[in-house]
């Protein structure tokens, strides 16, 4: 063994992992630190930042200067954050309600068919999300696929005004991230021992009770993973909110994008991103907890 290598096995293990730590350090911690630092600086009106410390970005989240230069409470951004969470939770719930039966159905198929279905589920990812979201404008929009036949048949006599609503955003988000719900639920259902379902029905369970008492508890880790995988990109999404919400109904993601692009307020954008990051971290801690519980069940199996 080389004399340069550390003696203890633990130290060698650390040494072996060094490249990974360097990568994580450079490509994750450094950008996040830059973002954290920027959020405490003054904005440069021409883009970028001025090297002067300031908490203005965080103040701006809650307060604004009125005409007499007094700080007053401004609910505008809070409302956007609130709506982001609301829409993201809504999209997550819809994804769950739609995704679970799909995953369950796929699990019940013969093995060779299952792979085909999973392949089909992932097909949308082969096309750009922007283009797929534009498709929804054609579907929902004025003179679109839904409206035109109804208008022609005389069932409605004015536009349904489906575009540029919270509903349109929720549809867009659900559509974008539904596969991310189906896949982890399928992965956990696939591991489910279906003989347990027979045992449950033998012990006087109705179909509904088999679901609630056996299937759902046993694939909870997959459900939680799916919810997080959908919720996190939803809350940072800006394509669906911008295109289907018309940029009027802003969400956190579009707000951040707006700050870096048109508004040229990098510190504020960074502060919003920090907020987003904390939401994600909270969600991941929640996931880690439930995953640990699952490990406890399976690790001892």
């Amino acid at each position, binding site marked *: 063994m080389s004399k340069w290598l550390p003696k203890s096995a633990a130290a060698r293990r650390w040494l072996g992992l060094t490249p990974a730590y360097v990568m994580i350090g450079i490509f994750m911690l450094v950008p996040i630190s830059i973002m954290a630092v920027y959020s405490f600086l003054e904005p440069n009106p021409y883009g970028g930042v001025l090297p002067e410390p300031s908490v203005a970005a965080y103040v701006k989240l809650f307060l604004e200067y009125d005409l007499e230069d007094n700080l007053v409470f401004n609910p505008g951004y809070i409302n956007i954050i609130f709506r982001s969470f609301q829409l993201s939770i809504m999209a997550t719930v819809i994804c769950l309600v739609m995704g679970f039966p799909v995953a369950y159905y796929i699990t019940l198929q013969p093995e060779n068919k299952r792979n085909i279905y999973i392949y089909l589920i992932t097909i949308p990812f082969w096309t750009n999300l922007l283009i797929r979201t534009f498709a929804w404008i054609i579907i929902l929009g004025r003179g679109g696929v839904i409206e035109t036949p109804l208008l022609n048949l005389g069932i409605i006599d004015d536009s349904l005004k489906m575009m540029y609503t919270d509903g349109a955003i929720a549809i867009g988000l659900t559509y974008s991230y539904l596969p991310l719900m189906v896949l982890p639920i399928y992965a956990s259902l696939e591991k489910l*021992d279906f*003989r*347990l379902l*027979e*045992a*449950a*029905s*033998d*012990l*006087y*369970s*109705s179909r509904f*009770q088999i679901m609630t*008492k*056996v299937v759902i*508890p*046993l694939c909870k880790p997959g459900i939680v993973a799916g919810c997080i995988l959908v919720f996190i990109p939803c809350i940072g999404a800006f394509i669906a909110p911008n295109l289907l919400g018309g940029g009027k109904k802003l969400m956190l993601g579009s707000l951040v994008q707006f700050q870096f692009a048109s508004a040229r307020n990098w510190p504020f954008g960074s502060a919003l991103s920090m907020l987003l990051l904390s939401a994600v971290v909270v969600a991941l801690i929640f996931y880690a907890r439930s995953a640990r519980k699952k490990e406890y*069940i*399976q690790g*001892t*199996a």
Partner: protein
Amino acid sequence: MPAASIDVRGVSKIYNPGSQQPVKALDTVSLSIADNEFFTLLGPSGCGKTTLLRLIAGFEQVSGGEILLFGEEIAHLQPSQRSVNTVFQHYALFPHMSVAENVGFGLERLKKPKDEVVSTVKRMLSLVKMDHLADRRPSQLSGGQQQRVALARALAPSPKVLLLDEPLSALDLKLRQTMREELKQLQRETGITFVFVTHDQDEALAMSDRIAVMSEGHIQQIGSPTEIYEHPVNQFVADFIGDSNFLDGEIIAIEDDIVTCKIGSESVFEAENSGNHAVGDQVTLFLRPEKISLTHSTDESTDNHRRGKVSNIVYLGNEAAYTVDMGDGISLMAQARPKEDGNLPFAIDDDIAVGYSNRALRVLAK
């Protein structure tokens, strides 16, 4: 005649009917299981034992015939509507529930009051001697412990019939023997009809009131353990249960209840007549090894004595299995106990006397 708890009438089961390879798992099987009976389905792997249990439990639908549970046709009932519980071969305990929650599962689905659930679970767990592990997860239990939990879980809702699918097959020999006695005792105490599936003949003989021997979707014989062992109806049953010597030959004379057969080129054996045979029939004679007495000099107390030469010995501890070459291409398996000092009574190539009574040698139907 006691009330039948399960009546299986001409039941057939075909898996994947209409497909390329339909599997006929059961072929017009009929049997009737009495109330409070310990009934065993015995047969080699793939003979349809599990299929029959699954039909009774309701996990599969019959392809033909009908099954009656206490006189009631049950084809239309879901598994959850049948007062039948199953102890699965693989236990199928719920991994996300504690031992106590597993045992209480059926009671809770039946909407029993809370205190009754708690007390029944307690009683069941102490019955299977698992009360000290009530809070464990199934995955933290040994195979034998899981088996007991599976048993307690199936017994807790006090079903009228308990179906047990090879519940002891995963256990080691010692534990299996203990569980045998415990199961048998449990069945006596609870008075529940047990339908027990096994491919272990010792298990079947030790525990059952009656045994159905199955092969390839057919029932070969139904009877008490002694009937099955002593009077097998055909070579399959005789071969499957216990060890046997089979001698193929031709009947050359019949006199009262004694049949005389020619075996090999010139040997003549006399056997008990078990049915309608005629001179000239090709038959198989059957003789249990333990019915043969091996001695150095001729044992006058037996009806038949012949001489043979020891050709092989298998030492089994409490006894030794001898293969004796009788000449004329005939060899017989027999047993002898080791002597007081532990040495075996005969050695290879010893010339010994082989004796058996007339009633021990039987004619089997072809």
